[in-house]
């Protein structure tokens, strides 16, 4: 692909996210440098312009990052919902709550650029002050169950169904079952764990739209 401002090859592929609108920018290294410097200047001393995903690249994905580096990041996928970072960059919307854990490193500079902060200091849910990762595990389990059924692995599917029921019950009865959930529910996977550790059979390779549509039968 050519740079949008000259005939050189575009090596920087930037997705600008401005108040919900998505705009793609493809630039060669020279023009990218100017573009990103300009973006930083706008947000400089007197205040910030609209937050942009492009702005995120100005920080951690420094000018020295190559197309290959960006491509590797783009291929990272969520072990729960299966969305790739590339898909997020394209449509500006994340796939599930676990993406904030899975893509934490990639999102941190973006969020810092948008909000000028990287820590929540507002209200906290009384039932889940430490977070709801263990409930989000259901997103991956639905996908796994669908795959198990397709592969006719009914024992596995049944076990996943039981896990999903437990999560669903916890979700419906949150005011009644406080303090019991982490013990009674399967632990949520860590962001760094490979997909196969979750028994997803390679959720990272899943096609978009394949995200689980099966729940407790």
């Amino acid at each position, binding site marked *: 692909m050519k740079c949008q401002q000259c005939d050189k090859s575009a090596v920087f592929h930037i997705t600008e*996210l401005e*108040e*919900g*609108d998505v705009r793609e920018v493809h630039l060669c290294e020279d023009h990218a440098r100017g573009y990103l410097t300009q973006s930083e200047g706008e947000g400089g001393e*007197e*205040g*910030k312009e*609209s*937050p942009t995903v492009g702005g995120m690249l100005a920080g951690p994905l420094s000018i020295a990052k190559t197309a290959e580096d960006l491509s590797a990041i783009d291929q990272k996928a969520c072990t729960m*919902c299966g*969305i790739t970072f590339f898909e997020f960059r394209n*449509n*500006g*919307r*994340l*796939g*599930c*709550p676990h993406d*904030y*854990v899975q893509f934490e490193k990639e999102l941190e500079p*973006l*969020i810092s650029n*948008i*909000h*000028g*902060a*990287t*820590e*929540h*200091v*507002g*209200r*906290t*849910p*009384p*039932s*889940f*002050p*430490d*977070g*709801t*990762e263990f*409930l*989000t*595990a*259901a*997103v991956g389990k*639905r996908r796994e169950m669908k795959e198990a059924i397709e592969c006719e692995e009914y024992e596995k599917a049944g076990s996943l169904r039981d896990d999903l029921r437990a*999560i*669903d019950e*916890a*979700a*419906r009865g*949150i*005011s009644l079952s406080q303090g019991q959930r982490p013990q009674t529910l399967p632990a949520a996977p860590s962001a760094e764990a490979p997909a196969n550790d979750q028994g997803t059979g390679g959720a990272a390779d899943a096609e978009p*739209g394949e*995200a*689980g*549509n099966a*729940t407790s039968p």
Partner: protein
Amino acid sequence: MDHQDALDGEEHVKIDSLTNAVGEWLKGTGPESDIVMSSRVRLARNVAHFPFVSRATEQERGEVEEFLRGQLAQSPAGKQLEYLNVGQLHEVDRLFLVERQLISREHAEAEGARGVAIDAGEQVSLMINEEDHLRIQCMHSGLDLTGAWDQIRHVDDALEAVVPYAFHRRWGYLTACPTNVGTGIRVSVMLHLPALVITRQIDKVFRSLHKISLAVRGLYGEGSQALGDFYQISNQTTLGKTEEELVGQVSDVVPVLIEYERRARDFLVRESQLNIHDQVSRAIGILRTAQTISAEETMQHLSRVRMGVLLGLISDVTISDINVLLVRTQPAHLQKLRGMELDSSDRNIERARYLRQHFENGEGDASNAN
């Protein structure tokens, strides 16, 4: 053709009752309501055990809608709300809810299972399966962000007792778009700033607002042009500050804008009263006599008339009248009031008829009344 045939009976009655009502926020009774039309606070929330809406399958969206509707029905907050299945509504009725600012345009145009729960005074609305699973909104008349925040906080607390909101210790409430993460709060005021527009100071004001991280939009939200000198000011960031700080960020700046607008109005009255009186009189003249008129032109003239009322140049018309006309002359409202579908040119004729009827009793120039 009467489109309402397409509706099931229950939804039909709910929409009809809204058509004939006037939302609290339109009444023009709140503090500073000569300049501040409305104060709005919204919270973005997601259910922890489902993918976000854009990633969810049709079945999952259906399950989220069913789950939230069920939990809402169990909650004390939900018992005071009327639920509308947006997916089953006719296009005109969905647009009607947009014009009433009870749902977003995106929610109206989306596909799949989705709904909205609304309170009788139209102050509270909860959209299910918009960009996030849940968008809670609270809207008050005039400058009352604290009141709107207090109300929405209680609704949120009540729902949080029965819905596991997606939450992360570091990132806060997790949202589909990172621009909303953290508190998930958007605090906004709708301002009527005709004098700043006429005196060409509006761009300068907006540049100043951008510098303190506040966003400016037109009357109907994202991406729209400001029509009739109505502007929405809102916070851009949602993380790293408490909800109260973010409410304060917007509410602190509004009195300054009110002061600028008042000064500009005083200046206009002092320096060019004849010119302003002429503009206001022409505006009401067109609204009183036009045979066909677009929504955009109507809004421009109603904006001038609204300013005329506030400057004492027009009698017998109230701010509340103008606020209601601003909404009822929108395309879907006209069709609902008329009880039939109308194409664009028929709507322009119907709009002109509706306005003539409203102004026919000689409401108008204050100098005539003296």
